[in-house]
């Protein structure tokens, strides 16, 4: 349900970048979303689409890459799909490598002239 707020934040960044590049249109936006954030890609796309009405992003495709939770244990190595901060094998502390992302990666623009 926080997808609307996330889509708003995303749209602000995209609009700012589009203005910077003097883009007439944004055709695609790529984001990375960690599995731990609980963000539903469909809900995020829906919110982004709805908020994009009348904006430079109207009609843009939102590509959402879901990043699995990954942790690294000093002794047992990298494990995927484990949302723990303790290693399920040896019980040691692990380091979380991915799963919390909420990042914009890139966007595709049209009619853009590089700003000086």
């Amino acid at each position, binding site marked *: *349900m*926080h997808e*609307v*707020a*996330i889509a708003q*934040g*995303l749209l*602000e*960044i*995209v609009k700012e*970048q589009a203005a910077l*590049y003097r883009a007439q249109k944004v055709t695609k936006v790529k*984001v990375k979303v960690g599995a*731990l*954030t*609980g963000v539903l890609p469909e809900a995020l796309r829906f919110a982004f689409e709805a908020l994009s009405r009348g904006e430079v992003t109207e009609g843009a495709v939102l590509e959402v890459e879901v990043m699995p939770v990954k942790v690294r244990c000093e002794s047992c190595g990298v494990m995927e799909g484990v*949302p*723990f*901060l*303790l290693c*399920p094998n040896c019980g040691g*502390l692990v380091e979380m490598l991915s799963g*919390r992302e*909420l*990042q*914009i*990666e*890139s*966007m*595709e*623009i*049209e009619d*853009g002239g590089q700003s000086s």
Partner: protein
Amino acid sequence: MEVKVVREILEANEVIAKQNKELFSQKGVYVLNLMGAPGTGKTTLLEKTIEMVKDRWPLAVIEGDIATSRDAERVARYGVQVVQINTGGACHLDGNMVREGLKALNLDGIRLLLVENVGNLVCPAEFNIGEDDKVMVLSVTEGDDKPLKYPLMFQVSSLLILNKVDLLPYVDFDLEKFRDFTRKVNPRLEVIEVSCKTGQGLQRWIEWLQGRLEGRR
């Protein structure tokens, strides 16, 4: 043309949260972000806490809800400053809503600001508001598997209040299993078992709070 833009989507909220934090720090206010599911007992814990500490530390309350001012009315009975924020549909408080809410509060002389977030186990975990600590409330009626289902909430919190422990004999809540899940999801998370109904464990919670407030000085 493809443009690389590697940025945090919630960066704007982070900026506001940081500004809130600076303000709190200037004023010498310790701020707690109270999170948990609807019906877990956040407002009741708040009421008990206010009763126990309001003569010791001048305090103020921000109540976050999607709609109604019921919680703020409950809190106002204790004669403390309270402001209700209605998020109008949003499932969490963010830095900006708290900043707006602060306009209705006078923080001069206030030592403790208790912020009750919207009842939700997912969204509030992503949005910092400038708090010193996030405290999660979970009640035994919600089930012992919650750390596995909502790991992020357990990972961002400094303390977990396990509420309604007086109901343990009546529900299938396996305390040992719960402790094990919690430790795996976040070994640094402190857990205090309380019953707001009987008062069990509340003294320990107030001691925890005191430790944090004194650390803040």
